[in-house]
C-alpha cells in the first residue's frame, strides 16, 4: 500500500496535478509518526510512511493547506474522508485545492496499549497472523494483535470513502452501529444509575490536564478563536481550577461539535490521560440518531446539521426523564 501511495504521490507531483502531498512522516521509533507535507519526490522517498501506526487524521491540516497556493494531494482513510467532507460543508476547506486519494483504513495500532501491557523499550512491532511480535530492549514480547488496536478503530463506523478524486485499493462498506458496537459503552453508561454515571465521569474528567489536545486535534474544532481562549466569552479558562470547569469544558466542547462530529475518534486517541472523550461525542450522536433520525456528519456536504434544523414534531426534553435510569 505504502508503495502504491508513494508512486501515486510522485506521479501527481510530476504531472503537476498537485504541488504538495499531505501524508505521514516516519519518526524515531516505529510508532511516533508525524503528519507532514511533502514537496518533492526525494522527501517522499526518504520519509513518507503509511503503516499500522499512521492513525492521525490529516483532514484538519487541510483547512490551512487548502488555502495555500496550488493544489495539495491528501491521502485520506475512510474515517478521514468524513471529517474532510464536514469541513468542506462548513466552508473550512477549499475543495478545489485538494486532490483526495482515498486509501484503505485501519485498524491501526496504539502504542499506548502495548505499553500498558508493561511492554517497554519497544524497538519493532510486527503482526504475524494475529499475534504482535514486539522486539524490545528486553527481548521479544508478544501480545494478541486485536488487543493493541486503537480504540477508534475497534468501533470503526465505515470503511467507505465518502469523498475522493481517486481511490487506491478497494472500496469498503458502511458498518452498522450493531456491527461496530460503537454505542455499546454509551448504552452501558446510560443503564447505570445517575450516581454511577457521575462517579464514572468524575473519575475520568478529574484526570484532565486541560492540555487542549482533544480540542486542537478535533477536525470539527477549527474556530478562528475558541470560546475557551477568548476572555470576552466569559468562560475562557486555562486550567480547571475546580471540578466544575473540568465538566464544563468537556460538555461545551462536545456540545459545540454536536451534529458536526463525525466520530473520528481523534480526541480519545490523543488524550494523554486516556479519558474516553469520544463517549461524550457519541452520546450526542446516539441521541441525535434516536431523536431526530439517523444522521452521520460528514456523509455529505449539503444536508442540514441536526442542530441547525428542526421538525415540528420533535421530541420534548422530557424524553430524558423517560429514558434509561435516574
Amino acid at each position, binding site marked *: 500500500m505504502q508503495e502504491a501511495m508513494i508512486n501515486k504521490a510522485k506521479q501527481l507531483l510530476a504531472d503537476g496535478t498537485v504541488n504538495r502531498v499531505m501524508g505521514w512522516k516516519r519518526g524515531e521509533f516505529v510508532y*511516533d509518526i*508525524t*503528519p507532514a507535507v511533502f514537496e518533492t519526490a526525494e522527501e517522499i522517498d526518504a520519509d513518507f510512511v503509511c503503516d499500522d501506526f499512521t492513525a492521525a487524521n490529516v483532514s484538519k491540516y487541510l483547512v490551512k493547506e487548502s488555502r495555500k497556493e496550488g493544489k495539495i494531494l491528501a491521502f485520506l482513510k475512510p474515517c478521514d474522508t468524513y471529517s474532510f467532507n464536514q469541513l468542506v460543508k462548513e466552508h473550512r476547506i477549499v475543495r478545489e485545492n485538494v486532490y483526495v486519494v482515498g486509501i484503505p483504513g485501519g485498524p491501526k495500532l496504539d502504542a499506548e496499549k502495548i505499553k500498558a501491557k508493561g511492554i517497554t*523499550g519497544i524497538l519493532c512491532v510486527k503482526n504475524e497472523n494475529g499475534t504482535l511480535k514486539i522486539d524490545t530492549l528486553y527481548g521479544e514480547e508478544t501480545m494478541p494483535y486485536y488487543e493493541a488496536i486503537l480504540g477508534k478503530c475497534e468501533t470503526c463506523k465505515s470503511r467507505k470513502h465518502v469523498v475522493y478524486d481517486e481511490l487506491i485499493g478497494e472500496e469498503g462498506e458502511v458498518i452498522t452501529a450493531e456491527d461496530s458496537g460503537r454505542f455499546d459503552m454509551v448504552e452501558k453508561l446510560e443503564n447505570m444509575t445517575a450516581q454511577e454515571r457521575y462517579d464514572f465521569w468524575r473519575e475520568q474528567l478529574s484526570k484532565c490536564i486541560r*492540555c487542549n489536545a482533544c480540542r*486542537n486535534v478535533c477536525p470539527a474544532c477549527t474556530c478562528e478563536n475558541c470560546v475557551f481562549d477568548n476572555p470576552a466569552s466569559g468562560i475562557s479558562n486555562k*486550567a480547571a481550577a475546580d471540578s466544575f470547569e473540568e465538566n464544563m469544558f468537556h460538555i461545551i466542547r462536545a456540545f459545540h461539535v454536536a451534529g458536526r462530529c463525525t466520530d473520528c475518534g481523534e480526541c480519545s486517541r490523543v488524550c*494523554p*490521560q486516556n479519558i474516553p472523550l469520544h463517549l461524550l461525542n457519541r452520546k450526542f450522536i446516539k441521541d441525535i440518531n434516536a431523536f431526530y433520525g439517523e444522521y452521520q456528519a460528514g456523509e455529505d456536504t449539503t444536508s442540514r446539521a441536526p442542530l441547525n434544523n428542526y421538525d415540528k414534531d420533535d421530541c420534548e426534553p422530557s424524553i430524558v426523564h423517560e429514558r434509561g435510569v435516574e
Partner: protein
Amino acid sequence: MLRIPVAKSDELFAAIASQQTLYLPADRKDGQAEYRKWEEGVKLSSRLNTVRSAKDFFFPQTENLAEFRMEGKKIEVIDIRKESEDFVIFGVRACDARSFTILDKVYLVDPVDTFYQTRREHGTVVTMACTRPAETCFCQTFGIDPTEPEGDVSCWSDGSYYYFRANTDKGQKFLDSLSSLLEDGDTAALEETKAKTKEILSKLPLAKVSTENFGGDKLNEYFRSEKWGELSESCLGCGTCTFVCPTCQCYDIRDFDTGHGIQRFRCWDSCMYSDFTKMAHGNPRLTQLERFRQRFMHKLVYFPANNNGEFGCVGCGRCLSKCPISMNIVKVMKALEEK
C-alpha cells in the same frame, strides 16, 4: 547500605504516612501511573514513570495567590496562604528529580517565589533508581544517571530490597525517622542490577542524542533556521508537551469572581498557546512557528544561556510518547543539527 525487604514495603509506607503525607506513583485502571496519596491498599507502581511529572507537588497546575473581598465599595486584600504540611514524594525518577533543580533556578532566585519555596521546604524527595528504561528515555543526554538518582534520599531496588541513601540533612532526618524499620545490608545484588541497567542504557535508541551542538551561544545559529517551518507545520498548538513536561514552568495569573470575592490564582500556561504572549499592544508571537520555536529554543538555548549551560530538559521522554502528532525535542534537535 540501609535497606528494607520489598515485601515489607507496606510497613514502610505506613510508617512514613504516620508522620507526614506520603505520595507515590500508583497504577490507574487505564494502565498508566499517577502520583497518589498513600493509604492502605495503594501499591507502588511498577511502571517507569507517571503521566504527569512530579513537578505538580511544588508547582501545582492551579494555585490561589490571594483573595479580594468587596464590602460596599471598599476592597480588602486577603492573604490566603496557609502553612503547608510536610510531605514525602516517594519513587521520583532521576529525570524528575533533576527537574526540581531546574525549577529551583527559576523560582528560588531573586525574586523568590515564596509559594514554590514553601512547598520545596516542606517536601522530602525520595527518588527511585531506574531498572527498566524505555526507548523514549534520553536523560543521559543531560548528564543524568538514572541508576544514581538525586533527591533528599536516593532509593534503589534489586527486586528483593529497597536500599536507601540520604543526600541531604532533610533526607537524613527522614531516614532517621525510619530507623526502626531499616537495617544495614550488603549491596552486591544491587550493584549487579545497576550494571544490568547500565548495559541497557548504553543500548537505548536515543543514547547517542547529544547536546554538544546546543547551548547558550547558539541563538543566532538556530533562531533563523529554516527548519522551524517544517518542524512546526504539524504542531496542533496544544499544551500536552508543556503540561507533561517536568521542567516547563510558565504560568498565567488570572482573577476569578466567585460572587463573594475575587480569587487571584495562577495556572500553568503553555508557550504553545496562541494567547501566551498576548499583551495590551498585541502579540509578538503570531504564528505557531514562533511559538513552537520558543519552546525548544528556551530549553536548548535560552535556558542554558541564563543558567550556566544547564539545559531546560531532563530527557524523561514524556513528550515523546504523549505528543498527539509525535513531534518532540529529539526530532527538533536532530533536525536542527542536520545542516
